[in-house]
């Protein structure tokens, strides 16, 4: 019997929420963006059906923590846009989080192999068995 759809949706949403901040930082790492363009990039690149409003609390949080800086830029096509870019602290944090994320992905996808385990870990296992 399959898992209930609403339960699955809830978990997918939770998973995305957790990673979205990292995704936002990842996009801003390479290029500055304003809110709407950020939404477009994440939706189109990541093929994610994103609730656009969720971007702003994330940006507010990053701004509050000094991880992004912002500036208003006049636009020919309408209202001025508030552009965000990662600060040096934000870039450092992203590098660290990205490494953690890689480890988690590897763990989830089980890319590790038993023979690659460190020597010390194997010894511990052996002692326990004994």
């Amino acid at each position: 019997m399959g898992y209930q759809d609403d339960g699955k949706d809830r978990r997918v949403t939770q998973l995305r929420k957790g990673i979205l901040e990292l995704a936002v930082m990842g996009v801003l790492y390479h290029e500055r963006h304003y809110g709407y363009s950020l939404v477009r990039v994440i939706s189109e690149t990541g093929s994610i059906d994103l609730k656009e409003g969720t971007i702003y609390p994330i940006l507010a949080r990053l701004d509050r923590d000094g991880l992004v800086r912002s500036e208003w830029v006049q636009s020919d096509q309408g209202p001025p846009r508030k552009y965000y870019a990662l600060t040096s602290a934000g870039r450092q944090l992203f590098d660290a989080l990205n490494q953690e994320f890689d480890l988690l992905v590897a763990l989830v996808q089980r890319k590790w192999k038993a023979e690659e385990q460190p020597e010390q870990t194997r010894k511990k296992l052996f002692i326990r068995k004994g």
Partner: protein
Amino acid sequence: MNEYPTVVAAIANDYLERVKSQLQLVPAREQEEFLLELRSHLYEAYRQTPGEDDVARILTVLRNLGEPAEVVSDRLPGAMVRSGAKRNLPLYIIGGILIALFGIPLGFGGMGVLIGLMAALLALAVAFYATAGSILLVGALFMLLGLTRFLFPPVFDLLISRGFIQLGPLAEFFDQLTVADQSLVMILFAGVFIAAGLGMMWLGKHLLRGLRFLFRLVVDWMSRFAKTIRLKLRKEQPAGHPANLLSFVHSDK
């Protein structure tokens, strides 16, 4: 063309008003800036959304953006965010009543009263901790005396004879007890005092939490009040403020 159709502008403005109503505790300038950012988002999203029906297009944009409460989360002051989980928190209600009673109607006078009140509460907290500290100190002294009486009776007697320890009306009572019993009584006293002191320290955590909450509310209110006064005195936006970059968003009115 940089303008919405009137009906679209009305819908967008209504949405922004709902967002604004969620941002009441956010400083005015931050509020204004965020609303401008959202206006920009709405405008761009509206332009990018295909369709013949203007109303359907703006409604699609708003649906994609989400409810105002979702959009503003993480912008509310710390005190408000924390109170969100405990809406019935009595201190929050008291803070609201104090501000309503003293802050708004009386202006600066109310602010003075609030500052006085906060100072009094702070003094109360200091007095509370001083009392708790004293009780703990008394407990520690009793413990020391009890142990001295039990382990080094001659030292205790010497301290009595030199007048360093004065038992006062308890002297007669203590004279009827053995040395071990005297020690036991003093250690029991010490236990009671130490327990009371530690209990007060534990209760103090809640007192401090409540005070911290009230302080945040008052500081936030005073900051908004000061900003309002400053803006009224200037009577115009400061140069370089994002609101000055654009006026078309109001042009449909």
